[in-house]
């Protein structure tokens, strides 16, 4: 280290960065800030700007924000009409509510299934833990699309599940499972389960066993210990996992498109229709902005809950 910091190259670079007002700390912060700027703020403002325009048949298909008036003055053309349009038509409200409903239900099921799995992995002896974790991550090595297609094979009328149930004589006529909300829930829970398990595992594995021993010594049953010690301590993991499932689920497009039925109304599909079928980029942008606000609100709330917990 000393040899390195004494080298002329190192000192030269350090001097240059110092002249530019960049310290090592500044650089480390600059990278995520740049990322945030380029991949979140800029697209967000582009969307916001399009959402204030009107659609027209042109290249690009919306009105410009600035236009020269007849007298040469610069005019700003913007209106909130598209947001009013979303508010007025019950379709969009229903689509948002239905997306939230499906996302909440899938998150709950992912938690109910994911928690015991994460708990089991965290309590397993070391060597087995890595094998179990590998098994959780392994499905990611095949394409997500392929795995959803596999579910179509399971759920369809002439599919694996129906054929099995029929041959066992449990049912006479095939169950309609594909193209229902049920199939969408299965698809989402299946796809996002690892995102629930991994943060939970990371949290549970850090749990100090001294707490559990103390609880046992004080006469708490395993059940009581779990609900009064383990569960509250794993809350940050539950929140992290739930957010990782809830956020992508609410805007999910591919899974409802492949597994859902015609009446599966989700905001991703509505957005697609506005953008592609109506060619109405401004309304599509407004739909996206409203969704962003809807998703950001619960995140901020969860974040504040977590912060308060950490302060306590």
């Amino acid at each position, binding site marked *: 280290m000393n040899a390195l910091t004494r080298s002329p190259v190192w000192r030269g670079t350090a001097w240059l960065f110092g002249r530019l007002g960049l310290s090592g700390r500044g650089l480390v912060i600059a990278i995520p800030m740049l990322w945030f700027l380029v991949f979140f703020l800029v697209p967000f403002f582009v969307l916001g700007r399009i959402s204030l325009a009107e659609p027209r*048949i042109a*290249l690009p298909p919306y009105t410009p924000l600035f236009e020269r008036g007849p007298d040469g003055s610069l005019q700003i053309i913007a209106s909130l009409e598209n947001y009013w349009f979303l508010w007025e038509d019950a379709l969009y409200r229903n689509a948002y509510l239905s997306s939230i409903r499906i996302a909440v239900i899938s998150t709950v099921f992912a938690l109910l299934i994911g928690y015991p799995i994460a708990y089991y992995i965290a309590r397993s002896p070391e060597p087995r833990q890595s094998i179990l974790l590998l098994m959780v991550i392994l499905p990611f090595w095949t394409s997500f699309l392929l795995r959803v297609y596999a579910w179509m094979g399971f759920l369809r*009328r*002439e599919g694996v599940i129906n054929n099995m149930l029929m041959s066992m004589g449990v049912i006479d006529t095939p169950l309609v499972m594909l193209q229902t909300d049920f199939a969408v829930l299965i698809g989402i829970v299946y796809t996002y389960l690892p995102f629930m398990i991994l943060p939970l595992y990371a949290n549970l594995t850090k749990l100090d066993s001294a707490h559990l021993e103390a609880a046992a010594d004080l006469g708490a049953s395993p059940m009581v210990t779990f609900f009064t010690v383990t569960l509250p301590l794993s809350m940050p993991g539950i929140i992290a996992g739930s957010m990782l499932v809830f956020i992508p689920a609410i805007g999910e497009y591919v899974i409802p498109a492949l597994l859902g*039925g015609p009446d599966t109304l989700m905001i991703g599909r509505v957005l697609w229709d506005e953008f592609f*079928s*109506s060619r109405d980029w401004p309304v599509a942008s407004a739909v996206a902005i409203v969704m962003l606000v809807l998703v950001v609100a619960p995140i901020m709330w969860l974040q504040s809950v977590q912060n308060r917990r950490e302060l306590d």
Partner: protein
Amino acid sequence: MKRLRARTLASTTAMLAMLGGTAQAQGVVNVFNWSDYITDEVLEQFTEETGIRVVYDVYDSNDTLEARLLAGSSGFDVVVPTATFLERQIAAGVYQPLDRDLLPNIDNMDERLMASAASHDPDNAHAVIYMWGTTGIGYNVDMIAERLGEDYEVDSWSLIFDPEIAAQVADCGISFLDSPTDMFPAAMAYLGLDPQSTATEDFEAAAELMSSVRDHVRYFHSSQYISDLANGEICVAVGWSGDVLQAAERAEEAGRGVSVWYAIPEEGAMQWFDMLAIPADAPNPENAHAFINFIMKPEVAAAITNYVWFPNGNSAAFELVDEEIRTDPAIYPSDEVMDKLFTGVTYDGRTDRVVTRLWTRVRTGQ
């Protein structure tokens, strides 16, 4: 309007595109066409004859193509929109006019069809016909006979739009195209309305009709029905002619006793044209003209039709098309049926919004 057979084609060309590096280099033409809508041999032959390498990419809906074109700088030299979409895209300034001097083979084109297409592109200034087809009913012959009797003849939209008849076949599966520009005109034709109408009340009447049979529809999708018809998963599909016939071919190949056929309803059906056009900002416009001129060679157009089962718009190619296809009234309809076909219309922004909104209501029941 689309095919799915050449997945391999799409992937090999995608690989070529990657190996090729910059697509702007000399001697390249970037083609963006419907999935499985051409044969590999034709592309190879083009490269052999002209030395121009083809970078080929595919899409499966007009909407996808349009979104890329409207965003600008798509980088494509040749694209294949359906004529109704082409009309609006021309208005948006997406295309450059064709240079007739570079397209001597245009004399091979069928004048009557080109005149029909000119209703979307005056004087055929921006595009020539690639393939065309109809939107009709594909069905499973045995399953329909089983439910509606041996004597029932599929020749009317009532099979899907009459709630009583639709209810009888619902159990074996009905599918609708997820394409309002195909479905609304069909419903209007059944109701005896002008299928080219853009009046809101006509769309509402059509939407009400489709909502009345919606419970009998298993799904709305524009390509899933090909394999589902072929393996008996569904028994009735509103579909595009060549796609249904491809399902019929697949069913026959599978040899599991599924027999699929295609009908053009007597109330009338939509005739559509997929058009070859050159974006205004195409990087290689000369190569694009060379490609389009090559496609208009009779033997090339015939080779494509023999593979995709959609008719081309090339009168000089007709004699070169396999007899089995040439004489099939489901592919090349008789003059009597041709008279009952109608062409699509291009909707303006306001109508688009009405149509999309009503379509969502039909599809979701909301």
